[in-house]
């Protein structure tokens, strides 16, 4: 009987303590996220006012170079071009001339994507 009452105690206390501590943790994580976002928001505003000129410059360049709205941004094109050049060990503008980028339908098997996402998440 003594053991039985101890068991009931352990079950109730155990589950309550596990839940309460994890619920507390949940709220703390949410709170920390909100505080961080608030801090980020206020520092972001400060940065925006000081960086107005450079933002306008970049958007201006985009308008000149992008003839089609579906095209990726110039920065993205530059990054992809550089990556292709680097992976092929080619000099810029020598062997390959990139004329356009087009998004193609997804052909990678889903398990590969899941594995890749997991790998990337693991490296982040």
């Amino acid at each position, binding site marked *: 009987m003594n*053991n*039985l009452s*101890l*068991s*009931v*105690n*352990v*079950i109730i*206390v*155990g*589950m309550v*303590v*596990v*839940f309460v*501590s*994890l*619920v*507390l*943790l*949940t*709220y*703390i*994580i*949410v709170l*920390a*996220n909100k505080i*961080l976002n608030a801090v980020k928001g206020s520092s972001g505003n400060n940065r925006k006012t000081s960086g107005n000129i450079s933002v306008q410059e970049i958007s201006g360049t985009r308008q000149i170079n992008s003839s089609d709205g579906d095209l990726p941004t110039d920065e993205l094109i530059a990054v992809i071009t550089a990556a292709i050049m680097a992976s092929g060990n080619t000099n810029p503008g020598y062997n390959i001339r990139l004329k356009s980028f087009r998004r193609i339908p997804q052909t990678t098997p*889903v398990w590969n*994507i*899941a594995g890749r*996402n*997991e790998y990337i*998440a*693991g490296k*982040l």
Partner: protein
Amino acid sequence: MFQELINTIVDLINSSGFVRGDWKQFLMIAIACLLIYLAVVKKYEPLLLLPIAFGVLLANLPFANLSSYDGPNGQNAVGGLIYYLYQGVKLGIYPPLIFLGIGAMTDFGPLIANPKSLLLGAAAQLGIFLTYFGATLLKFTPQEAGAIGIIGGADGPTAIFVTSRLAPHLLGPIAIAAYSYMALVPIIQPPIMKALTTKKEREIVMEQLRPVSKLEKVIFPILVTLLVSLFIPDAAPLVGMLMLGNLFRESGVVERISKTAQNELINIITIFLGVSVGATAKAETFLSPKTLGIIVLGLIAFSFGTVGGVLFGKLMCWATGGKVNPLIGSAGVSAVPMAARVSQKVGQEANPGNFLLMHAMGPNVAGVIGSAIAAGVLLSILG
């Protein structure tokens, strides 16, 4: 001359393990060989099952005195190799060090992105406490029942940590049961998950998780350590080391230490832990009706943990208006990352375009924290 030679050979044979060995020891050697087979051929948690199985083999070699209990006898005597390795288990050193490595390998991003998944990690600890109750009914002492119940946490180092404190004589069977069931997660969980959910629930596609900043990831281990250790000081060794390992990883300033924790250190400790835990399974303690009870109760613990997680997942599904797929609840039993993979697999059977893996990783890593807290509770009440 010839007679003397014969006598010498007969004496040699009579003093050999073949003649002087007990049938129980040979049965244990056969069990060790079966476990080695499961680890090598079936690949059931081989990283730990293989050293554990070989530890069982060494401990049961007749007159080799290689068990974890064969310590120094008499003045100036020295103990055996495994006796000294076992002190790391007995003193509670190895499991927290394993947690250090696990922390360094774990990405808590999915959990931080969806903190509600912590609740699923809590619900999945139901198996621990229900099995504790069942074990008490089967006349196990409260300490033994606590050690058996912790198998439901599906976390090997936690099970070893609790058992070494509450019921060290059951270390062998509990470690073997815990690691065997962890390896059997893909077989044990899917029928329970399918039985408790409708096809419509299994098809639910969850929203993509938000990106988590580095600052959040750095703050997380500090917050968890403070909160859990202040709340349940007995959980501090496990949670503290888990979070220290994670801070190594997320801070990005101690890459060498982080790599050591997740590779060399954890591998060395795994060898020491596996062999010395296996070597506690001597025939006289292992071959008893209690072992059978532990194996059965371990399965019950595991199953109820899955049930708790899935049922809470259903509750969250209902409460959020169908935004949570209840299948991720089963990942609340630790068994990282196997349980999350099972959620992904069962979810994809119902809806091939569904990707639950990252969503299930949240409850999965929450289960590690949850089982460490449950261990702390058991130690503080029963220790």
